[in-house]
């Protein structure tokens, strides 16, 4: 094991400053600093606030990761960094940091795709990924369904949200219900006491006519509006809002669509592995529903533990490790941060 490459990963695409260290598929350190509390009063991530926080956090987070792994930067074989997609200013701090480390320590650097890293992180939990696989990536910034034929060379986008990201819908509905930001964990908690079948909220892009052009795409803005209308109607009638029931029914609608389309992608391509990643993959109902329904279709679900689902440095290190093992060449030192990095590009 000791001869497997030691890879450092840096993640700064949104509001988490992450530094992870892996050896092969073994996680050695996963240090994280979050600016989430600074964004809470704005009800969403403020890009400049996130960028400032990354600059302050990167050096101490790196120190923590190295200590946790018991290695020095001289021991590292390669540095991987999220070069996109994400918030431009936030990405740039991580990319510049990775280059600073790479230049000073004379190490190769890999600029990698954040979404591919969400897939790769599962290898730290469940070992090498069977290819091809279907991946469902859901967070506050992205909602994508993709086919992974070769994680080192590129993934094939099957569909994505046409409006809000799934996590965004959680945030907006949480605000509607008077729950704090980020909404995901609070909705999840409230929903446990609620009846998921009490309110029939719409399932976006699941009607026969929508399946023609948007079979694997998602839409959550209609659902969000439906929840808002329902809650307002209650309030206008002077009736109390059953928060737990609304949360449970909303969550059920989101998970139903996500799992339904992910399994449809597996079925239509004859692929029996489904990887679920991203912050929304930490949702307990999504995990349970995916397990349950996938079993019926003979599909194996791989979902990393919640801490690895949200943004972190370990996922970037995991992808870097995969790229090094596959013999992919490092990036050039002038690699850019690309806020709109396409899914088809795994490393630059």
């Amino acid at each position: 094991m000791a001869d497997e490459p030691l890879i450092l990963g840096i993640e700064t695409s949104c509001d988490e400053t992450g530094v992870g260290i892996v050896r092969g598929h073994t996680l050695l350190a996963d240090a994280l600093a979050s600016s989430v509390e600074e964004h809470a009063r704005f009800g969403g991530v403020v890009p400049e606030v996130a960028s400032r926080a990354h600059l302050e956090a990167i050096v101490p987070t790196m120190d923590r990761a190295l200590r946790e792994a018991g290695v020095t930067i001289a021991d590292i074989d390669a540095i991987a960094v999220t070069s996109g997609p994400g918030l431009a200013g936030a990405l740039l701090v991580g990319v510049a940091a990775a280059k600073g480390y790479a230049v000073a320590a004379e190490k190769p650097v890999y600029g990698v795709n954040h979404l591919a890293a969400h897939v790769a992180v599962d290898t730290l939990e469940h070992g090498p990924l069977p290819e091809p696989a279907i991946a469902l990536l859901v967070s506050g910034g992205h909602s994508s369904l993709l086919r992974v034929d070769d994680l080192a060379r590129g993934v094939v986008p099957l569909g994505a949200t046409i409006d809000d990201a799934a996590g965004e819908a959680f945030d907006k509905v949480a605000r509607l219900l008077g729950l704090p930001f980020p909404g995901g964990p609070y909705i999840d908690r409230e929903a446990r006491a609620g009846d998921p079948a009490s309110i029939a909220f719409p399932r976006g892009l699941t009607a026969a006519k929508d399946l023609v052009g948007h079979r694997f795409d998602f839409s959550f803005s209609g659902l969000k509006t439906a929840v808002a209308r329902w809650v307002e109607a209650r309030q206008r009638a002077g009736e109390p809002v059953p928060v737990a029931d609304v949360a449970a029914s909303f969550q059920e609608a989101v998970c139903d669509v996500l799992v339904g389309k992910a399994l449809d992608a597996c079925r239509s391509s004859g692929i029996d592995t489904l990887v679920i990643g991203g912050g929304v993959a930490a949702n307990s109902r999504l995990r349970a529903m995916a397990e349950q329904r996938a079993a019926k279709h003979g599909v194996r679900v791989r979902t990393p533990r919640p801490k690895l689902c949200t943004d972190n440095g370990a996922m970037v290190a995991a992808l870097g490790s995969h790229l090094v093992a596959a013999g992919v060449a490092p990036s050039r030192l002038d690699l850019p941060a690309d806020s709109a990095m396409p899914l088809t590009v795994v490393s630059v």
Partner: protein
Amino acid sequence: MLVLVVDSSTPAVTAALADVSADGVVLRASRCTVDARAHGELLAPQVDAALADVGARPADLGAIVAGLGPGPFTGLRVGLVTAATMGQVLGVPTYGVCSLDGLGQPAAASHPAAAGHSAAAGELVLAASDARRREVYWAVYDGAGQRVAGPDVAAPAVVAERARDLAVTVAVGDGAQRYADVLGLPLRAEPRYPDPLALARLAAERIRAGAPGEALTPLYLRRPDAVAATGHKPVLR
């Protein structure tokens, strides 16, 4: 001692190497590219190139000096995070210098290259860089190169008024050039962007003394644009 100097507070992305000794400060290599939108791409290769220029390795560096701005945030952070991360790996101190000092100090101080133009004793120099949004980052320096006002950020017309009040007689920097008509001051052509030799000199005393390094905190001067999320808008009519 070989010292790395970086500044990314203006459209000029600069990486330079200076030798700081008891006798003085000498510039050994300097790589500078003017491109307001490629700081992240340009800086690290330029650091690499500057090291190659003098046949040095990163481990030969004894200290790092970084321009703290003020400057447009995104580009500014590239220089500071580069300096901070390199300092961390190499275990060498990092020193911050106000980037405007890298304009005002050399423009004000007697300088052979500026013979005939150097500020006479008591003459005040306005250093201004482009802050975008029709504003400039600015500071004022006396004939000895000491900052006597600023750094601050303001509209050129406001800066012109301050400069008049202070009896400033000459201006320097890309911001001063861009808004020359509003400022109404004679211009000094050089330095247009923070001068790496000046930045190294400004930190030389601390370097020679082996002073403890400092966390590199940007001179933002502006609060982040953060629009608080508005309350829920009714969807029913």
